[in-house]
């Protein structure tokens, strides 16, 4: 159990890369990229987790602050990461839409604009 979470995150990273390699559709490839990225969320949050600790939010009105909370820094990092994921996905989906318009296909095996 002590490394299971980390192994899952490595798995997600690699399985996403695998998806891009065998993808026949660029929209699918972009989604695989986001699966790869979700590996980083899992890793970061797993690193910050502490058994029996509460969330790093003391609320309104506040409960008494305690240091026995899970790591807020990795959560802030993951939040940034989620934003990055969403925006990059949007950007790449936009590119995919236009690629389909110009080539009539999204299969990377059939796109032949950039060889040599």
């Amino acid at each position, binding site marked *: 159990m*002590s*490394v299971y979470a980390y192994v899952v995150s490595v798995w997600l990273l690699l399985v996403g890369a695998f998806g891009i390699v065998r993808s026949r559709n660029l929209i699918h490839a972009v989604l695989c990229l986001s699966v790869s990225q979700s590996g980083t969320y899992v890793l970061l949050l797993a690193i910050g987790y502490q058994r029996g600790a509460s969330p790093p*939010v003391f609320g309104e009105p*506040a409960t008494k602050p305690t240091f026995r909370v899970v*790591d807020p820094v990795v*959560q802030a990092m993951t939040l*940034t990461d989620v934003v990055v994921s969403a*925006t990059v996905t949007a*950007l790449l989906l936009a590119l995919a839409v236009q690629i389909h318009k110009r080539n009539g296909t999204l299969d990377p095996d059939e796109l032949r604009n950039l060889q040599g």
Partner: protein
Amino acid sequence: MSRRARLMLFLAGGGGLCALLLLGVADLPPFGGSFHPYRTHAVAAAVSHATSNVVSSVNFDQRGLDTLGEESILLASVIGAATLLRPAKDETERAALGGGRTLESTRFLGYLMMPVTLVIGFDVIAHGHVTPGGGFQGGVVVGTGIHLLYVAGNYPALQRARPLRAFEWGEAIGAGAFACVGLAGIAVAGAFLADMIPTGTFGQLFSGGTVPLLNGAVGVEVASGTAVLLAKFLEQAIMIRPGPGRGRR
């Protein structure tokens, strides 16, 4: 490269990398352990600035520079996607059709849900420095909520409720405001993004110094950005068709 060759190449490389990573993570501190030095300091810092959501304190106060970068990424991506999804020179926009094909119940649901969603979104933004959530989460909810009008089948109403230019401004103003608060920090307190206004009482709505300000700026930017993004994708899916005539620039 053939599909087979590509796969073999991937398996060779992926296998090697996987081995390295697995050997690496075996050295990580065990899952659920109590080694979190940064956590301890970050909680103390959040309490000292009266911000009861420590994650918001890290995001907007302690590591505010990251968030400035993050908001710039959002701005760049939204503007980038909008640029990429503009009608090409050989395309035309056709007028959208209004209503007619949506089930009455769906339409009702859409109309009902929209204000509820918007209220929730604003609430999540407003309390971002004290309870879970904040400008980003609430902003996404607001930006998406507006598009419930589409679920309601009323695309023309959506176009009216969603003046794209205003949202483009909202996005720019949100990002600009964040940067301005940062610069004001230099002028007032001598450090970029410094928490320069009175911090208030821990756990109250008015607390956390600059955190709620920056949180609000992010909320405006994210809500506008999400709206622009979804609008551009909708426009592509519904309105833009290949055809003669000059595209709109």
